[in-house]
């Protein structure tokens, strides 16, 4: 949407396309910064900036792996500071740190600007489109259950995004979850845990890949939960817009003027 000529919308509140519903919504800047800290890129996902968020998540996995940050984190948490210092690769660690901090900063800064634009978009109140039908996808606004979305993502990160019609992000998150599960030996170790072989289970686990998982599952649950809350809000706004158009000029006679 580039045109801002008279009559054309200047700031859209949301757009529905083959990728799902993309929208601008009020964000707590600290929450956005926090999710960037949990996993660089997650803060940008919350702002609807899907491409740069995906780029940042790729950078995080790549540079964390090369710099061996997760292993260092495990050593640090268990008091093994000498080992932690030894394992980190300085060729990658500084770059990792800079990207990590700047991603946090950028998401926080964007959230502040985002919140101003939300107010402008809401005051402009352009018509929200509730329905999309294309060659290979159908998307629509509907009343959703935030709890169901959270449970979907808890079961398998990405499924909550599927529930919310964000198919690109859903496929991306599910692919990575498969990779984390297999490279960390998560399921095999969990199985050994059930059999009671605790020490063997711990031995099987690979800390580097395991440590990505809490952030990913947490971020996925959070994203699914608030996205469905906000879809509900978009649904309500759109429906009121429609009712105002269609039933805005009733000729009802509620009270007779006699007497």
């Amino acid at each position, binding site marked *: 949407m580039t045109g801002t000529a008279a009559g054309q919308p200047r700031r859209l509140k949301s757009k529905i396309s083959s990728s799902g519903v993309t929208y601008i919504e009020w964000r707590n800047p600290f929450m956005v910064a926090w999710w960037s800290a949990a996993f660089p890129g997650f803060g940008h996902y919350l702002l609807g900036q899907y491409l740069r968020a995906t780029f940042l998540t790729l950078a995080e996995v790549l540079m964390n792996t090369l710099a061996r940050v997760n292993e260092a984190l495990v050593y640090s948490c268990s008091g093994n500071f000498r080992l932690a210092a030894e394992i980190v690769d300085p060729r990658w660690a500084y770059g990792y740190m800079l990207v990590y901090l700047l991603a946090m900063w950028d998401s926080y800064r964007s959230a502040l600007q985002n919140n101003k634009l939300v107010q402008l978009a809401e005051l402009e109140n352009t018509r929200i489109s509730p329905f999309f039908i294309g060659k290979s996808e159908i998307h629509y606004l509907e009343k959703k259950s935030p709890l169901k979305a959270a449970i979907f993502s808890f079961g398998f990160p990405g499924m909550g995004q599927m529930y919310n019609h964000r198919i690109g992000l859903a496929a991306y998150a599910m692919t990575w979850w498969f990779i984390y599960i297999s490279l960390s030996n998560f399921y095999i170790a969990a199985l050994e845990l059930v059999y009671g072989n605790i020490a063997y289970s711990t031995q099987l686990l690979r800390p580097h890949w395991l440590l990505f998982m809490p952030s990913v599952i947490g971020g996925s649950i*959070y994203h699914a939960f*608030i996205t469905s*809350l906000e879809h509900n809000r978009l649904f309500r706004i759109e429906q009121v817009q429609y009712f105002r158009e269609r039933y805005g000029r009733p000729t009802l006679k509620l009270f007779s003027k006699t007497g």
Partner: protein
Amino acid sequence: MIGTFIQNTELELALSVLEHHGVPAEHIAVVPMHGREMTQASVSAKTGTVNEKAFEIGIACATALGVVGTSVGFTLELGPLMWGVIFSFGGMLAAFLIARTVMGRRQRSMIGRVRRKRSNAQPEITVLVQCESERAEWVSQMMLKYNALSVGEMEEA
């Protein structure tokens, strides 16, 4: 006829069916029950129930503690998986309960601005339909069929 609804797709179905069967759009009035706090966008952005906000904070804390628990667990007896899960759920529960208590108390102390706890059954839309008395029963049935919360009749004066 007067019906109260919550906002969902069934409500649109109800109105479309009424129109399809010959009730003119001018004889239908739809009133969003959002008060006058927002004139443009009808639902305020920053409001959410206390439970919704507490859940968000809970998930954020669960994630942070999940990473810590997993890391620490490598040297503890039960192993990283168990400690990761224990830390996550513990953190989630603690943060949720603390946030709910704090926000609940703050909300209650805001005299005059207390928002009622939003339950699903609270009406969000009131629909008024003017029709002949012979059709009143049919209109009422249609409203109830499409999930009206309550339906009432107002006789012509």
